[in-house]
């Protein structure tokens, strides 16, 4: 049988210019000024006896390079990799949002891409209207939508609010409705980016169940990007690990996840997003840096279980940013289980500028384990708006120096593993009761 997707030598370059790197978009004014600026630079170089033809100030970045694979109908493939490894670019090329710069993909079937929940939802329109709008955007025909309308509404549990504009929806209802439309897509190939991470746990489970049902029963092909390794191993049969835009591993899902972890050794405890080809964020806010800092103010990824530390993020709020963003960190362990999610409460009146949010996490709280930190910033009014959400952006290793802690309260001479995602030391009291 012919593969349903086959990619040969796929490549995608982005041109990044050093002059405009900090800007999220370009202006014509800059473009006009660039030529004179360059001439001036050259003239200066010439005067100083340097090379007249200085190097260009822009460079091409390969977001994908020489990627080849083929996928058979019915396969559920997880695509994993660090940030900037090219996962989203690959999905965007497959769903035709952006054109490849080299190579080709042959797709024999209808592709629906789900890169965001509720793409195109309009706050002024009612739930009913948004179902039709979103369905059409995702590639359903009116007849399809009408046929599944009741099912979608039941799935989303919003019957009572069908004729209410979605701007009055709670964020939970908004996400549920958006998911419900997506869950009822019936393409041959479903391309899903990291969207299942929003919404409450129960609804997530429902969506996963629906996806599993769809891919199992009807032999749908699914390409799935996630940082939640638990999801990859439970949902996918095959895993493709991307590194620096190239395929580092292609095989069983569990094996790919294992490779991901072993290769992530020395994974970052500090990330500088201003160095990436594309800004992380949107029109409201862009993420600049995130890092972990120990009690002495040193940037490090290894923290003694007994001492506190800080996770910090630095971001720029743009002039259109709504008033109160909610910066947050989510910590996951290697099994993809969320240890906790914590949301900051910055001042309510924040103007345009660069901000740093710090979350102080006490010692004797996390267990000795490796944690992956999501760095996110969201706005909670008129539905959830996520400006950025970098999954597994930072890696945090909590170590327990046994020779020192063995005889302290946390171990009391016990040297084996201590269970639990966290290992807090709560206040205990032991009194004589009788």
């Amino acid at each position: 049988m012919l593969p349903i997707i086959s990619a040969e030598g796929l490549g995608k370059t982005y041109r990044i210019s050093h002059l405009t790197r900090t800007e999220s978009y370009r202006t014509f004014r800059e473009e006009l000024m660039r030529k004179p600026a360059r001439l001036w630079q050259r003239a200066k170089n010439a005067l100083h006896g340097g090379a007249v033809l200085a190097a260009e100030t822009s460079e091409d970045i390969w977001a994908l390079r020489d990627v080849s694979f083929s996928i058979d109908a019915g396969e559920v493939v997880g695509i994993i990799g660090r940030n900037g490894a090219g996962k989203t670019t690959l999905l965007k090329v497959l769903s035709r949002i952006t054109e490849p710069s080299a190579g080709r993909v042959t797709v024999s079937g209808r592709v629906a891409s789900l890169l965001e929940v509720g793409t195109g939802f309009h706050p002024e329109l009612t739930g009913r209207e948004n179902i039709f709008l979103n369905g059409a955007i995702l590639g359903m025909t009116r007849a399809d939508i009408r046929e599944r309308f009741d099912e979608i509404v039941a799935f989303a549990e919003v019957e009572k609010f069908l004729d209410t504009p979605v701007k009055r929806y709670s964020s939970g209802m908004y996400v549920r409705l958006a998911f419900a439309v997506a869950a009822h897509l019936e393409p041959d190939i479903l391309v899903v980016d990291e969207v299942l991470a929003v919404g409450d746990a129960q609804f997530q489970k429902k969506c996963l169940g629906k996806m599993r049902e769809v891919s199992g029963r009807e032999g749908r092909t699914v390409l799935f990007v996630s940082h939640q390794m638990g999801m990859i191993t439970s949902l996918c049969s095959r895993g493709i690990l991307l590194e620096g835009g190239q395929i580092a591993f292609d095989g069983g899902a569990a094996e790919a996840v294992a490779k991901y972890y072993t290769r992530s050794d020395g994974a970052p405890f500090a990330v500088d997003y201003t160095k990436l080809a594309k800004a992380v964020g949107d029109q409201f806010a862009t993420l600049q840096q995130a890092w972990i800092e120990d009690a002495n103010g040193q940037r490090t990824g290894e923290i003694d279980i007994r001492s506190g530390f800080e996770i910090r993020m630095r971001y720029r709020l743009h002039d259109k940013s709504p008033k109160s963003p909610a910066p947050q960190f989510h910590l996951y362990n290697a099994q993809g289980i969320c240890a906790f999610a914590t949301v900051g409460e910055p001042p309510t009146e924040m103007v345009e500028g660069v901000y740093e949010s710090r979350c102080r996490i006490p010692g004797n709280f996390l267990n000795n384990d490796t944690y992956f930190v999501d760095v996110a910033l969201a706005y909670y009014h008129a539905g959830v708006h996520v400006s950025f959400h970098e999954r597994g952006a930072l890696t945090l290793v909590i170590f327990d120096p046994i020779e020192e802690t063995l005889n302290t309260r946390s171990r009391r001479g016990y040297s084996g593993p201590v269970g639990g995602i966290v290992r807090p030391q709560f206040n205990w009291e032991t009194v004589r009761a009788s």
Partner: protein
Amino acid sequence: MQQRRSQRSALVIEPGSLARLLWRDLWSYRELFFVLAWRDVSVRYKQTIIGVLWAVMRPFLTMVVFTVIFGRLAGFPSEAGAPYALLVFAALLPWNLFATSLADAGNSLVGNSNLISKVYFPRLIIPAAAIVTSLVDFAVSLGILLGLMVWYRFVPGWQLLLLPLFTALAALAAFGPGLYLASMTAKYRDFRFIIPFALQLGLYISPIGFSADVVPEKWRLIYSLNPLVGVIDGFRWCILRGDGAFNWQSLLTAAAVTAAMLWLGFRRFRDTEGTFADVI
């Protein structure tokens, strides 16, 4: 179901495939075009009172001002004995259609950047759908025209039946430059500042507050390079009973300029379409 039918054909995605498959895609995404047009219209008229009021008041007030300034104060002559207010309104109709179409189409890509970066569909749909909203506003303004005709007891002739033709010409005249501007604003955001400026100039260099007959004969050809001259001549001919002779010269010039701009705008749009998701 459409989803099943298209299953057989294999799609090859490679550099340049967007442009190659454009016509096929436009056809298969035709439904999205209607849905996006419906969205734009229903959002605009959602607050019914304000939506309709806006569409009514804007051309009406402009007409009053122009009639007073050009008809009364400057004393320009009307055409074919028609009331000056009708002369002005017959020009404001296509002008507003042109202006809102151009502005909406030009800003449409940036306004829909969330869609462009998350889903594929032929991007041409977005500016095209934006024009539909302007056509709806235009239809509302036709209601005012009707009211004016009743007020002045002015009975139009058979020429009115040709109005849709000139309406299409006005929309197409806006679509070409609209495509060009949309493509430019996607890449350079400051390009959108050009649109209101150009439209402001256009309002005065187009024969809206006055009849094109005011322009001296030897300048007429150059003057009619502005496609709105031909469109407005046509509108006045249709609405004011065409007592004045039909101006073929301005119509043909307008058609030629419109076609050339459509071609330029379309080519620019098609050549840059593949990069919209990357630059927007």
